[in-house]
C-alpha cells in the first residue's frame, strides 16, 4: 500500500472502472452488485425452469413414471422455492440495486458493503440449497412446508433440514437488503427529489423493502422453531406433545402473503415507469398509484388466512378474510385503470419493453380476477390446492412479476451495457413467451376445475385430465424455448448490440440523464430536481445534464472495495450449514469466522 499505488488507483478510478475477477468479488458498487444479482437469479431461472419441465413431462400422461414420486416431490418443492427465493426476489433486488441510486440521484446505496454482503449471502444460500441435489436430499415437502409433515417422524432424512437452513440464510440476505434500500431512499435523494417526485419504481422499492424487513422475520421465526423441533426435539408442531401444526400455517402465510406483494410490487413499479415513457405522457394519477401501492403493502398484512379457508378456522374468521381479501383487489384495480388512463390519449410506441408492460396489464388482470374468485371462501373450497390455484398464481407471478421484470430488462439494458437489445429477437421473445405462457397456464384452470389437485405426482387415466395436461406441457416447452431466446438476446446484444445513447427511449427520469453505461461514481455532482419528469422539461433537462454529463471537478468520494463482505457472508452461511452436523460446537467454527470477518470489516477504512 505505498502512497504511489494508492494514488494511481484513485486516479484510475475516476477515468475507468477497475477490471478483473477480483474487482468484482470485492466490489461494493451498487451497479456491479445489481449485475451480479441479475446474472445469478437468471441462472436460477433456468434451474427452476428445468425443474418445471421435468414436472410437465411427468404429468404429460396419466399414471406416468418418467420420474419417481420422490423425485417429483423434490422437483415441485425446489421449483417453487427456487422461483420465489432465488429468481423473483433477487431479480427484483437486481433492479433495486442498479436503479434506485440512479433514479433518486445518489452515488451509491447507504451501506455499500452491506449491499455486497447481501449478495454473497444470497449466492451462498442459493448454492447450498441446490447442493441438496448432490446428496439426493432436496427438500420434498413443498415450498410451503406444512407442519407436521416436516417433522422428523414423517419426513426423516436431511431434505427438510436443507430447506430450513437454506431459507434461513436467504432470509438474512433479504432483510439486510431491505434495511439498505429503506435507508438509501429516505436519506440519499438528490436535492429537490421529494418523495412525491420519485420515479414509481423507486417508490415500489421502498414499499417492498418495508415488506422485506417486516415479513422475512416472520418466516425466520417459523423456520427457527421448526428447526428447534427437528434439531433439539422441541414440540411446537408436535401434536402428541400439545403442539399445533396449524400454527405453522399462520406463521408461514403471515409471511407468505406479504411475500406475494414483495414479488409483484417491483414489477408494478417497473411498468409504471415504462408505460409513461412509451406513451409520451406522465403517469396518470401519480399520487393515487403511489398510495395504492402503499395500501397494498399494508392490507397485504391482513389477508393471510385466505390461504387457509379449508383449514376450518370457523365462519367468523373466514368472513373477515373474505372481506379483507376483496378489499385488496380495489387498489390493485386502481393501478390497472391508471395504467390504462396513462396510455389513453398518448402516442404509443411498442418496442419490446412496452410489449411486456402491456402484456402484463392484459395477463395479470386474468390472475387478479381468478384471485377474486377464490377470495370467496366457499368457492375457494373447491379451487384451493387444485390446478385452478396453480393457474392463478402463475398468472400473477409469471404473467405479472416475471413479465414486469422482462420489461425492465429490455428497458434498462441499454443503460446498463451501453447497447440496445436486439428488437427482432425481442419481439420473437415476447410473442413466444405470451403464447407459451398462456398455453401452459390457461389449461390449468380447466384441469383444476375438473378435479386435479396440485402437488400430485400422477393422476388416474379415468379422470380424463390428459388433454389439459398435454396442452400445458406443450406450452411449457414453448415457454422454455422462449426463455432461451432471451438468453441469446442478452448475450448477443451485450456483444454486438447497437450503441445506445444516454436516453434512447426518451424517458423522463433521472437515470436517463447519465451516460450509458453510467460511470462508477454515477453523478459527478448531484443535480437539482424540480419535477417528476426532469428530462421532459427542456430547461430542467439542460440544467440536469449540465451536471450529469460533466467531468467530476474532484475525485468523487467513493467507498473502497472490500473482500470482507464475501468472507463474512461465507461465515454466516457456514454457521447455519454446520448445524447439519448435529454437533453443538460445529456452528461455533462458523461463528469464529464471522467474528474474524466482522473485526476485519470494522477496521478496514470504508473510504479511501
Amino acid at each position, binding site marked *: 500500500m505505498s502512497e504511489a499505488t494508492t494514488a494511481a488507483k484513485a486516479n484510475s478510478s475516476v477515468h475507468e472502472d477497475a477490471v478483473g475477477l477480483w474487482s468484482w468479488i470485492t466490489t461494493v458498487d451498487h451497479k456491479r452488485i445489481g449485475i451480479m444479482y441479475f446474472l445469478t437469479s437468471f441462472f436460477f431461472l433456468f434451474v427452476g425452469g428445468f425443474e418445471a419441465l421435468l414436472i410437465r413431462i411427468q404429468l404429460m400422461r396419466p399414471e406416468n413414471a418418467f420420474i419417481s*414420486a*420422490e423425485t417429483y416431490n423434490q422437483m415441485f418443492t425446489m421449483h417453487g422455492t427456487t422461483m420465489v427465493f432465488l429468481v423473483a426476489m433477487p431479480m427484483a433486488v437486481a433492479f433495486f440495486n442498479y436503479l434506485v441510486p440512479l433514479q433518486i440521484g445518489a452515488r451509491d446505496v447507504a451501506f455499500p458493503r452491506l449491499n455486497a454482503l447481501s449478495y454473497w449471502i444470497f449466492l451462498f444460500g442459493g448454492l447450498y440449497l441446490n447442493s441438496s441435489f448432490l446428496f439426493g436430499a432436496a427438500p420434498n415437502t413443498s415450498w410451503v412446508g*406444512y407442519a407436521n*409433515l416436516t417433522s422428523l417422524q*414423517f*419426513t426423516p432424512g436431511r431434505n427438510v433440514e436443507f430447506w430450513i437452513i437454506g431459507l434461513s440464510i436467504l432470509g438474512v440476505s433479504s432483510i439486510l437488503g431491505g434495511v439498505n434500500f429503506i435507508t438509501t431512499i429516505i436519506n440519499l435523494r438528490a436535492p429537490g427529489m421529494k418523495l412525491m417526485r420519485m420515479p414509481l419504481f423507486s417508490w415500489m422499492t421502498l414499499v417492498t423493502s418495508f415488506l422485506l424487513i417486516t415479513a422475512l422475520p416472520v418466516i425466520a421465526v417459523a423456520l427457527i422453531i421448526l428447526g428447534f423441533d427437528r434439531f433439539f426435539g422441541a414440540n411446537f408442531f408436535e*401434536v*402428541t406433545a*400439545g403442539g*399445533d*401444526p396449524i400454527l405453522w400455517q399462520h406463521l408461514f402465510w403471515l409471511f407468505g402473503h406479504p411475500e406475494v406483494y414483495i414479488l409483484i410490487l417491483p414489477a408494478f413499479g417497473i411498468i409504471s415507469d415504462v408505460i409513461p415513457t412509451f*406513451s*409520451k*405522457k406522465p403517469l*396518470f*394519477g*401519480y*399520487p393515487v398509484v403511489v398510495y395504492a401501492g402503499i395500501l397494498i403493502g399494508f392490507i397485504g398484512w391482513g389477508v393471510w388466512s385466505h390461504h387457509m379457508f*379449508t*383449514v376450518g378456522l*370457523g*365462519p367468523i374468521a373466514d368472513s373477515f378474510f*373474505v372481506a379483507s381479501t*376483496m*378489499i385488496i*383487489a*380495489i387498489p390493485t*384495480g*386502481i393501478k*390497472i*385503470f391508471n395504467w*390504462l388512463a396513462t396510455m*389513453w*390519449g*398518448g*402516442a404509443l*410506441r411498442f418496442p419490446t419493453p412496452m410489449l411486456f408492460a402491456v402484456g402484463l*396489464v392484459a395477463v395479470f*388482470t386474468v390472475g387478479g*380476477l381468478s384471485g*377474486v374468485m377464490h*377470495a*370467496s*371462501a*366457499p*368457492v375457494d*373450497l*373447491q379451487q384451493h*390446492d*387444485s390446478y385452478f390455484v396453480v393457474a392463478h398464481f402463475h398468472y400473477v407471478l409469471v404473467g405479472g412479476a416475471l413479465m414486469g421484470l422482462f420489461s425492465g430488462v429490455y428497458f434498462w439494458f441499454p443503460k446498463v451495457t451501453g447497447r440496445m437489445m436486439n428488437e427482432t429477437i425481442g419481439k420473437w421473445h415476447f410473442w413466444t413467451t405470451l403464447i407459451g405462457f398462456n398455453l401452459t397456464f390457461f389449461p390449468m384452470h380447466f384441469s383444476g376445475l*375438473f*378435479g*386435479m*389437485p396440485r*402437488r*400430485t*405426482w400422477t393422476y*388416474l387415466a*379415468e379422470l380424463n*385430465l390428459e388433454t389439459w395436461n398435454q396442452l400445458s406441457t406443450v406450452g411449457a416447452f414453448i415457454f422454455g424455448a422462449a426463455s432461451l431466446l432471451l438468453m441469446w438476446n442478452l448475450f448477443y446484444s451485450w456483444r454486438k448490440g447497437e450503441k445506445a445513447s444516454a436516453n434512447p427511449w426518451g424517458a423522463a427520469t433521472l437515470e436517463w440523464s447519465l451516460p450509458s453505461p453510467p460511470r462508477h461514481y454515477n453523478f459527478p455532482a448531484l443535480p437539482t430536481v424540480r419535477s417528476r419528469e426532469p428530462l421532459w422539461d427542456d430547461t430542467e433537462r439542460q440544467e440536469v445534464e449540465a451536471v450529469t454529463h460533466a467531468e467530476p471537478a474532484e475525485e468523487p468520494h467513493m467507498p473502497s472495495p472490500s473482500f470482507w463482505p464475501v468472507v463474512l457472508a461465507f461465515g454466516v452461511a457456514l454457521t447455519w450449514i454446520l448445524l447439519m452436523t448435529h454437533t453443538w460446537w460445529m456452528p461455533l467454527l462458523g461463528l469464529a469466522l464471522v467474528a474474524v470477518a466482522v473485526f476485519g470489516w470494522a477496521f478496514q477504512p470504508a473510504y479511501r
Partner: protein
Amino acid sequence: MASLSACGQEYLQSTINPVTDYGEATHRLYVQVFWWTMLILAVVWALLAFILIRFREKPGQGRPKPVHGHMGLEIAWTLLPALIVVAIVIPTIQAVFQIQRPPEGDVLVVEVTGKRYWWSFHFPELGVTTANELHLPVGRPVSLRLESGDVIHSFWVPQIGGKRDVNPVVMVPEGREPKRNWMHFTIKEEGVFWGQCAEFCGEAHSLMGIRVVAQSEEEFQAWVDDWKTPAPTAAAPQVEESGGPGTPTSVSGSTSAGGGSPAQQDSPAGMAPPEDPLVARGRDVFFRESYCVLCHAIEGTPAAGIIGPNLTRFGGRTTLAAGMLPNTEENLIAWITDPRGVKPGAQMPGAQYTVTYEGQTFPPLNLNDEQIRALAAYLSSMR
C-alpha cells in the same frame, strides 16, 4: 369397474357438477362470482384493445397533452369496483355461514380418519368401519367428522362439495372438546363419486383416493347389514365366533382334503357351498403365517388391528390401494407382493421388505407366491 357406473360424466372429479346441497351452494356462488369477474375482464380488455389501436403514435405526431390525473375518474374506478366487491362479499358471507351450519334431523355421522395414504370411515351409530369406499344413503343429511391419524390431509370429493382439511387432533385442556372439522351435506343422486386427498401429505399423496358410493336408503341398509354379517368365508366354517385364532389350521386341513362335497357337513347354519381350498389356505396365511392381523380387522373374526384399513367384506370393494387399482385378484397379488412398487410410499410392508411406519419398523410379510395367491383368494372371497 364401478368407476364406469358414473358414465355420462366426462370428468369424474368435476367441481362444477355438484350432487349435494353443499356442492350446489358453493357452485351457485361460483357462477355468480365468475360472471362478475368476466364482466370486469371484458371491460379491461376492451379498453386495452381500444387504447392499443386508437392511440398508436402517428407519423409526425408531437408530444401528447400531459394529463396528470383526474380526481373524478379516480373516485369512479375506486367506487365501482368497491360496489362489485360488496355484491360479491354479501352472498359469500351468507354462504360461509350456511355451509358450516350443522344440519338438523336424522343426521348420519361418519368419522373420517385420513392416514398416509388411505381413508378410514367409521359409522359410530351403526358400528360399521370401512376403508376408502364410503357408502352413503341418498337424501339423508350426512355429517363427516374429519380427523387425521398422522399429517394434515384434505377430504375432497368435488361432486360432493369443496374440500375440508383433515387435521390431526390437537390436545386441549381437560373438559374441552377437541377441535375437529366437519363437512355437512345431503346427497341428491345415486352414483359413485370420485375424490382424493388434496393436501400434500407425502410420497403417495397423489394416490390417496376416495370413492363415495351414494345409494338408495334400502341399498345402503343392505350394505350395512352385509357388513355386520360376517362373510361366509371370513372365519373358518365350523368355528363359532368364540373360536380363537389358534383353531383355523385344522380346518384348512380338513377342507382341502375333502375336495367338493365334504364341506356340506361343515355347514350347520346351512350357509356354505363347498369352500374353495385356496380360500381356506389363504385364511390360514392371513391368521397364522404372517402378521396381517396386527394391522387389519375383519368383522366376525379375531382380526382387530386398527393400524391399516379394515378389510371386512373386502371382496365387495371396487378398488384397492385407496382407489388406485380395480379390485381384481391379479392386482391384489401385485399389491401384497410389492406395495411400494405398485404405489410408491405405501406404508404396508412388502412380502420381502421392511417398512418403517410412524417410527416403528415392520418386518417383511415373509410370504411366497403360493401364499400370496391364497391370501388374495381369501380376501377376494369376502364379498
